[in-house]
């Protein structure tokens, strides 16, 4: 028995008793409710994760920030490939992300973006890749999935809503919906048993009264009065 234990310890033998994906290299999402539902207990490393149809401004980046903060403060590097807007440095820094570990890559064309993603995954130094691929085809995703499996990086692909109905080689696929002050994460593909209900993830929001009645627009003050003040209020 001792010999068997020894073999099991030294070799990666898959055992039926452990749920699929007890991969040790999962990265905690920072949200316990979500970690419980993610195979391996966190974001998978060395695999594709697809985030489909995220609307802007619902907390879609907040979902990843705790994991990115943990990675970067451990000195691990992250690549942002072809994001739709500027990831705003003051907000990233405020979320605890070490900006020194980030590289922002612009790649307007489909082929350039795919090539850049593969380069990042081939480099052992890129521990997370966030990529916005708008026109990726199945063959492209397949290539990325292969590259991801050969790497140890967490790969998050942000894809448009239309992609939800298409087949994908990603091992984890999520759809995001706003849910009051939280974010509803629907895991529609994962290793192991599928999940019926959405997970409510308490992402950080800038106001705590979402859903309370909005206040009316302040009346436009007389511009002339403003100008007479003339002092920089924040200077």
């Amino acid at each position, binding site marked *: 028995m001792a010999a068997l234990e020894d073999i099991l310890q030294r070799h990666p033998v898959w055992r039926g008793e452990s749920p699929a994906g007890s991969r040790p290299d999962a990265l905690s999402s920072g949200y316990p409710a979500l970690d419980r539902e993610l195979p391996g207990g966190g974001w998978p490393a060395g695999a594709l994760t697809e985030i489909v149809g995220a609307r*802007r401004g619902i907390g879609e980046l907040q979902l990843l920030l705790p994991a990115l903060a943990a990675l970067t403060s451990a000195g691990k590097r992250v690549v942002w490939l072809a994001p739709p807007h500027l990831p705003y440095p003051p907000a990233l820094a405020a979320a605890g992300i070490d900006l020194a570990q980030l*590289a922002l890559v*612009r790649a307007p064309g489909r082929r350039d973006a795919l090539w850049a993603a593969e380069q990042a995954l081939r480099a052992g130094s890129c521990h997370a890749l966030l990529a916005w691929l708008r026109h990726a085809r199945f063959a492209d995703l397949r290539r990325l999935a292969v590259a991801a499996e050969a790497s140890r990086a967490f790969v998050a692909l942000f894809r448009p809503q239309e992609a939800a109905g298409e087949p994908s080689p990603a091992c984890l696929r999520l759809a995001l919906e706003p849910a009051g002050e939280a974010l509803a994460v629907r895991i529609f593909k994962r290793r192991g048993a599928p999940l019926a209900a959405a997970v409510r993830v308490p992402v950080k929001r800038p106001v705590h009264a979402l859903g309370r009645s909005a206040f009316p627009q302040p009346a436009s003050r007389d511009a002339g009065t403003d100008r007479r003040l003339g002092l920089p209020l924040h200077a």
Partner: protein
Amino acid sequence: MEGSLRYFGGRDGLLGKLRAGLAELGFEASIAPADTARAALWLARGGGGRLEDLPVEVLDMEQAFFRSIGISSVGELLRLPREGLARRCGRRLVDDLDRALGKAPEAREFFVAPPRFAAQLELPAEATQAEALLAAARRLLAQLEGLLAARQAGVRSFTLTLIHPGAPSATLEIGLASPARDAARMAQLLRERLAALPLARPVQAMRLEAGDFTPLHASSAGMFGDALAETEDWARLIERLRARLGHDAVCGLATSPDHRPEASWRRIEPGDWDPREFRLPGARPLWLLEQPQRLPGTAFALLAGPERIECGWWDGDEARRDYFIAQLEGASLGWIFREDGDWYLHGWFA
């Protein structure tokens, strides 16, 4: 030289290696072995044979005097009386002859490579294919590598100029993430650039230039191998991405101590951020629209604000804005501001 003959496989082996190395660099050389360095130099200039039979032109001396006394070979010169020769031609000629014959020691200065590299190569035929250009560039890169190895140095960038017949030449600047002298690595970066280059005109010649040598010693995997290797790997990744996508396509991000949203960040070289320059602002969106987007006055509901941001009057880039957090497009949160009565969307709380 005697001591290293065995290692190089005898005199002929050594000469063969020299010739092959020089040919690879694109040089034609005249090589002659002799017992002393000066005799070898003269023989190489005169095309070999015996020292005595060489024409006096191989000497670094004024030729007019030799012609006037009817001396044409080194042998004839050696037979002249020494003292008379020294009086008429100066001590230097006699000394040079002594050094050639090995009667006097030769003190030579070691070769010091110049701190810049520039070499030009005429292509054997005009080329339009990236592959043909790359093959030619490899020869120049091999020369550069040789020079860098001799100086234990590396370069952080190099420039390849493609010379078109009868048209302005094109210049490619290749930046390296870390000092390098490996010709294969440089060729790989050049390949990406050449592949992306529209070659409308044939290339007649190319020139490779590099300066700003920095000390670079052969690296050895050591105690800190892992972290260092990762840093190096990261630098190489950025270098590869830049070679194909352009230098500005890859950057790092930093905060900047300024209240204006547009001025409170900047692009930097990846890795250059100093966290000490960061001060926590109020609620800031994770996505910033680099161009604020005009909003119709009814497209949103205000949730929080205003935060008055007004500064920059001293550098002529004045901003006077009231920022709000607003709900728009259903449940999305945007960062919007009002300026001169108009509303603009400036970011998303993503």
